[in-house]
């Protein structure tokens, strides 16, 4: 510290000597008289004062000596002949010192104003970033850097709760001489640079830390509010999911029990075609229940991570045909068209999972497509993949919903909870992904929804990774 103070003193002295010396040289060359010399030397004092009070005072003293030695008769000596010149010299000295002090003071004030503004800007910027929800770690680092800069620190560490940021020489932060400022959950540790903090600086620092603490509190309140909102949404969608699943499971049960109890108690009174129809109800609804149970169990297996596909060569038209046959009872009012090339290569997939995918996609289409409309199942090869599409001419799915329908909690409209849709598509996506494929949704040309997926063709899937 002493070395640096010495250095600034040397600079001050050098500046004063150079300025006064140069001025004197010019005045001598111009052969100026005492009055002109005194005025011009005052100017040199003013300029020196802009540097510091000390520099100004040195220049005043040197200026006085220069006036006396070079311009006051008898010149070339420090003697003064006339009493009036003695007074003039004294007045020069006093005036120079006063002007120097005033100028230096003004300059200090200007500098302080600039600093206050920088401090205020820093405070506003940092607190805004915190409140806007930026990561506390980032803001802590920025704060440490800003404080190091503002107060010329050697090192600084800022903590917002668990978040932490550093600037400067980290090792010094373990010094016991460090200053600690703590407000609420904000803690600032700092190691001073060359200069001690003035009272004003300390006040600025405290205000900055207090502002950061308030902003951090607000930041945390907002995070908590957001978390609570998310938790509420999740629990609401969970409740919706549970109620949809229980509704879906109970609905076929109601028909089964109604049909079975009628058959039991009225066996004699029923006409053969009525008995036939009740038996059909029993079989159809049992199958519907079975599909639902398979989906629910499938979902819990997926969640438990127990999905291990066993790929083998599987023919897409066989799988599509099987799904159509199984869902025939549901599809009495629809036309289902298969558009699959005979020479389409087989896919390399788990056949059981693929059956479930086809069933879920077709059941979904039957659920949304209006009676009498056509549903198309098409498949083609693109590169190493087989692409399958199930297209209906139902109400379609808005662009914004096209990703969300694969979410297990999402039902696109209120009617969807009636046949287990929303669960089925989530399972489709999980199963397709497990088979190294991709599932998506697009618009059917002419209107309606098309649910599509792609899976690797068999020859590709059966090669080891990286050989293709």
């Amino acid at each position, binding site marked *: 510290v002493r070395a640096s103070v010495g250095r600034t003193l040397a600079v001050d002295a050098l500046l004063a000597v150079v300025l006064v010396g140069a001025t004197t040289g010019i005045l001598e060359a111009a052969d100026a008289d005492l009055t002109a010399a005194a005025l011009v030397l005052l100017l040199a004092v003013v300029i020196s004062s802009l540097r510091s009070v000390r520099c100004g005072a040195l220049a005043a003293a040197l200026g006085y000596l220069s006036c006396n030695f070079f311009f006051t008769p008898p010149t070339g000596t420090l003697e003064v002949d006339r009493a009036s010149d003695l007074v003039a010299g004294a007045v020069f000295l006093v005036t120079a010192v006063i002007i120097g002090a005033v100028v230096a003071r003004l300059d200090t004030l200007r500098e302080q104003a600039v600093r206050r503004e920088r401090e205020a800007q820093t405070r506003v910027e940092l607190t805004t970033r915190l409140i806007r929800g930026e990561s506390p770690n980032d803001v802590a680092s920025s704060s440490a850097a800003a404080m190091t800069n503002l107060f010329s620190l050697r090192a600084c560490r800022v903590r917002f709760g668990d978040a932490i940021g550093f600037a400067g020489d980290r090792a010094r932060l373990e010094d016991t001489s460090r200053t600690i400022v703590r407000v609420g959950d904000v803690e600032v540790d700092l190691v001073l640079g060359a200069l001690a903090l003035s009272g004003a600086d300390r006040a600025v620092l405290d205000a900055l830390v207090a502002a950061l603490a308030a902003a951090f509190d607000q930041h945390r309140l907002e995070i908590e509010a957001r978390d609570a909102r998310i938790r509420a949404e999740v629990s609401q969608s969970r409740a919706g999911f549970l109620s949809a699943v*229980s509704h879906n499971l109970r609905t076929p049960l*109601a028909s089964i*029990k109604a*049909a079975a109890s009628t058959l039991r108690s009225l066996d004699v009174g029923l006409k053969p075609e009525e008995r036939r129809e009740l038996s059909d109800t029993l079989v159809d609804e049992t199958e519907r229940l079975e599909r639902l149970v398979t989906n629910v169990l499938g979902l819990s297996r997926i969640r438990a991570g127990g999905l291990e596909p066993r790929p083998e060569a599987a023919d897409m038209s066989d799988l599509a045909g099987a799904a159509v046959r199984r869902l025939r009872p549901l599809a009495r009012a629809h036309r289902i068209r298969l558009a699959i090339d005979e020479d389409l290569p087989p896919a390399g997939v788990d056949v059981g999972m693929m059956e479930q995918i086809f069933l879920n996609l077709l059941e979904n289409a039957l659920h949304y497509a209006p009676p009498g409309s056509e549903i198309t199942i098409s498949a083609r090869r693109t590169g190493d993949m087989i692409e399958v599409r199930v297209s209906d001419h139902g109400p379609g799915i808005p662009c914004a919903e096209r990703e969300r329908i694969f979410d297990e909690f999402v039902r696109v409209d*209120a009617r969807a909870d009636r046949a287990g849709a929303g669960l089925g598509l989530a399972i489709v996506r999980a199963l397709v992904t497990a088979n190294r494929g991709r599932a998506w949704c697009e618009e059917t040309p002419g209107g309606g929804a098309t649910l599509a997926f792609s899976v690797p063709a068999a020859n590709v899937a059966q090669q080891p990774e990286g050989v293709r």
Partner: protein
Amino acid sequence: LTTILIVEDDAPLRRALRMALGARDLQVVEASSGEEGLALAAARQVEVVLLDLGLPGMDGLKTLTELRRFSEVPVIVLTARDQQHDKVSALDAGADDYVTKPFDVEELLARVRATLRRSPTPKSGPTSVRHGELVIDLENRHVMLAGMPVHLTKTELSLLETLVTNPGKLLTHEYLLKRVWGPAYGTESNYLRVYIRQLRQKLGDDAAGPRLILTEPGIGYRWIADDERS
């Protein structure tokens, strides 16, 4: 021929019910939504309505409220087991009874018959009710058990009257409280529990194997005595 309107969105269940009720010589009219059900109830002569509470779109409760604006037709609501709250709301909104899905058709038919027996409500109710050794003289507000007079408080008597004059009908907590204690009441089901217990004690009924008053947990009470009325 009795006409029964089924408002249910699930087609297979409608089909099973159509067959089951049709075989019992009930004429079945079907609606798949609340709106359609209201239109049919307004257009046709219907004796009983079976109303699914879990309808998509206009739900069962809303349909019931709309129906009650223009019709006093008996309504039996079909509900799921986890819709306890909806059951109570439906009964308070004017449903006559409920059946929980999945149900045995015999149970449904029993409820339908009981509902049909109760309506239309006779203008002048019975003046006395006899069940085994129990005689309830409604006109003179006097109760005898095995030839001995039973002393009932005013509230107990009023509660008994309300139950006896609605034989077989499920009366909700709210209905009984408003009827017996007054319109300012409705949530104090603990009062009811206490008074029903006292009534059972004095009338020789048993909560575990009730012959007179049946508790529907969380919903209300029913007078189930197979009594003689005069």
